[in-house]
């Protein structure tokens, strides 16, 4: 017997924009929630974010928007106009969860904050995902990916000591904040299942990124030590190294001895006493690097990854490109990708499943909504007549 999806009893209203908030709401949708995305009449900023399908900057062709808004219905509504706010209040009465990413205080200025909305809906969970959280002296600061890295502490230890601190590539802080939004929403829902009460969940992207510094942070509170960026001295063993067709990373540890590593590289001289222990290898780092560079210059990433992992049980990584990931057999085996049929983009394969479950697994039931696609359906259900909906449309509220 197939049981219903774990969150299929929930109505989620997604007011958020960009990546983190929309991803949080989408994840709730993946596990069964009915998610209604509410956008301003001009569309949310995520619709203007590259990459676009075939590089066409059409608001229905942002692939980032597609990724973060699967499994949602979409309406437009101008919350800043009183009629818009009134309709939203009706929607909020039946909502279990609202996800939002406005500057702290904005919803309160419209009378749409959690404290007001919960008066008519005590079970309401509101999840706010913002750059610096709802409280504290920086709460009104604007943020984005690089600001999150800088202020979290992670950038101070990324890159090399001779150069400027370096951000991560892409948008992982946004993804991480979206994940934490969903995590904390789940916690609020479990609490509500116990006592019937909703609450306001405050997720700060700065806090999210800082929370990954579990070596760096207590270094200070245990000894006063402050880590910096890597100095370019000693050996680059353990760091990215070039080979015939790309780059690899190899590390000690796992199930292999140093002699085993020497055998993998096929160089007997690595077994000499000058490389016998970590201190020696650091001291003779330049010689070590030269031997390994020479040993790998004619070897490919794919061959080394397979040989090192299967025959030598080494901790070994290769620098894969998006193309490699798009054709990766391991990701296929994990059912990572999902085919999505989108009315404007057509059929496209989207990275979908973050992890796997033996029951109530994530399911993709809808593509991302077109702008205002479900206005009639949603507003009719809220009790608006066709004529009223027409008026709202003419006045630019929807």
């Amino acid at each position, binding site marked *: 017997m197939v049981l219903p999806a774990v969150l299929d009893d929930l109505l989620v209203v997604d007011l958020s924009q960009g990546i983190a908030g929309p991803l949080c709401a989408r994840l709730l949708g993946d596990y069964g929630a009915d998610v209604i995305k509410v956008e301003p009449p001009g569309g949310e900023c995520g619709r203007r974010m590259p*990459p676009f399908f075939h590089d066409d900057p059409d608001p229905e062709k942002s692939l980032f928007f597609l990724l973060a808004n699967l499994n949602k219905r979409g309406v437009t509504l101008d919350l800043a106009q009183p009629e818009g706010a009134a309709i939203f209040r009706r929607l909020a009465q039946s909502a279990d969860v609202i996800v939002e990413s406005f500057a702290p205080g904005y919803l309160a200025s419209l009378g749409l904050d959690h404290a007001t909305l919960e008066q008519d809906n005590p079970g309401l969970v509101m999840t706010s995902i913002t750059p610096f959280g709802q409280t504290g002296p920086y709460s009104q600061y604007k943020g*984005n990916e*690089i600001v999150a890295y800088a202020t*979290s*502490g992670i950038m101070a230890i990324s890159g090399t000591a001779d150069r400027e601190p370096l951000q991560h590539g892409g948008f992982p802080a946004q993804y991480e904040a979206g994940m934490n939004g969903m995590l904390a929403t789940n916690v609020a829902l*479990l609490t509500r299942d116990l006592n019937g009460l909703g609450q306001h969940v*405050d997720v700060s992207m700065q806090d999210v990124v800082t929370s990954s510094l579990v070596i760096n942070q207590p270094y*200070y509170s245990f000894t006063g030590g402050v880590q910096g960026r890597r100095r370019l001295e000693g050996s680059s063993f353990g760091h990215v190294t070039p080979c015939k067709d790309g780059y690899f990373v190899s590390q000690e540890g796992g199930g292999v001895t140093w002699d085993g590593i020497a055998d993998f590289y096929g160089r007997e001289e690595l077994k000499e006493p000058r490389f016998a222990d970590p201190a020696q290898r650091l001291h003779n780092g330049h010689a070590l690097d030269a031997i390994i560079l020479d040993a790998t210059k004619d070897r490919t990433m794919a061959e080394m990854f397979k040989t090192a992992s299967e025959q030598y049980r080494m901790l070994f990584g290769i620098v894969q490109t998006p193309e490699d990931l*798009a054709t990766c057999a391991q990701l296929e085996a994990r059912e990572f990708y999902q085919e999505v049929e989108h009315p404007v983009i057509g059929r496209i394969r989207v990275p979908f499943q973050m992890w796997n479950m033996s029951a109530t697994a994530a399911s993709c039931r809808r593509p991302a909504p077109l702008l205002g696609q479900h206005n009639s359906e949603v507003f009719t259900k809220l009790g608006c007549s066709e004529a009223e909906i027409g008026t709202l449309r003419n006045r630019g509220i929807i």
Partner: protein
Amino acid sequence: MVTEKQNPGPEPTLPLAGLRIIDISNVFSLPYAGGLMADLGAEVIKVEGPGRLDISRGGAFSGVFPENEPGDDPWNRTSTFNLLNRGKKSLAIDLRRHEGREVLRDLIRVSDVLMENFTPRVMRGWELDYPHAKKLNPNVIMVSCSGYGPHGPYAQYPAQATTQEATHGLAHVTGYRGDVPSKAGQSFVDFLATWALVMGTTLGLRYRHRFGKGLWVDVAMYQLGCYMVADRILDWEANQRRGDRIGNRHPWLAPQGCYRCAGEDQWCVVSVHDDEEWAALCQVIGRPELARDARFASNGARMENHDAIDPIIAAWMAGFSKTEAMERLQAAGVRAGAVFDARDMHLDPHAKARGLLEKVQFPPERGIGKRVIIGRPWRLSKTPLHARGPAPTLGQHNREVLQDILGYDDARYAELEQSGVIGTRPTHPRPVLHMSMDERVHRGRLAYWDPDYKERLGIQD
């Protein structure tokens, strides 16, 4: 026990109160998830072997000892272990022996969640994978975390976050502009796994609450890491673009960068998203005429002429401290962020006001005192959360788990103890490499250290 007495007074019901979690975990990802679930109210029993300690109890990933002093029981004193495993109980039992696994089977029968992060073949080999665990306890939620997942061509490959960062695609997009791929941060994918493990467990608990059945949550770090470059994969699928390394620039907005401020190794980032913010930046740096300069008049033009903008911003930044630069730019509505290091993380006014970092008091006999650790990056308005006690010493709760929870009699307990199936000391303690704080700085392991850090943090004994 001291741990239980630390937070007297009534507590609001915690979401995981009354739940028992078995946490057979190693290193970062799963231990951290277990620690967070202890914060959420669960009874979390960390299971290690006297001959197979969590590797965060010593060696490269374990951080440092309090005051850099290993003490008599270094395995109980490492900083990273004590952060990740807060609020847990410790059972030290040899799972490689049949008698040890019998204890684990008994424990599974009376627990709600079983979490483990062995290579997939281990639990299968012990007949303790989900199909078997479910027979012992049909309602158990099993949570597994592995490098690549239990099936597929890479299933048995050894994995660690630091090498996976390359394989899951993050290193390809990280690096200085036009330079080689780079790693960034510390074991990044481990923490993605932490979030996913708690997400999956909480979904599982709600599923069981609604439908009365358990399930298996199967987290593969590689898959999660690949998700973090999903937008790049889509760009490849739709546009056959591989993406470049662009350092600290933004892929489609300009200008953005990290600039040197006044002082030693002080930096501030700035990021302009539109023309209005560009005009505001030009005002702040005292160059209002640049807002009308045709070279910088639109985002496209600024992308094109980024190299000409960088020295202009750099010249202004050099005259301010990093926080002053951040404050001035943010006050004008321009995104900016000081590059905070570990000291700033503890002492910055916003960090202090937020309270992400919290103090944990250790019992006097541990000789650790009071320490500050990372709490949780989310706050719930009606469910105040905090770390519910320090991390346990190895095997601290052996008797409590075996006798109070499982009801073993004294004779059985003594037998397990005498045969070395359970213990409170490692059978093979790791050698401790002592290095003074000054030497750590000299060797480049640290940028600097603050001998007065306890006063700064307010954790003097």
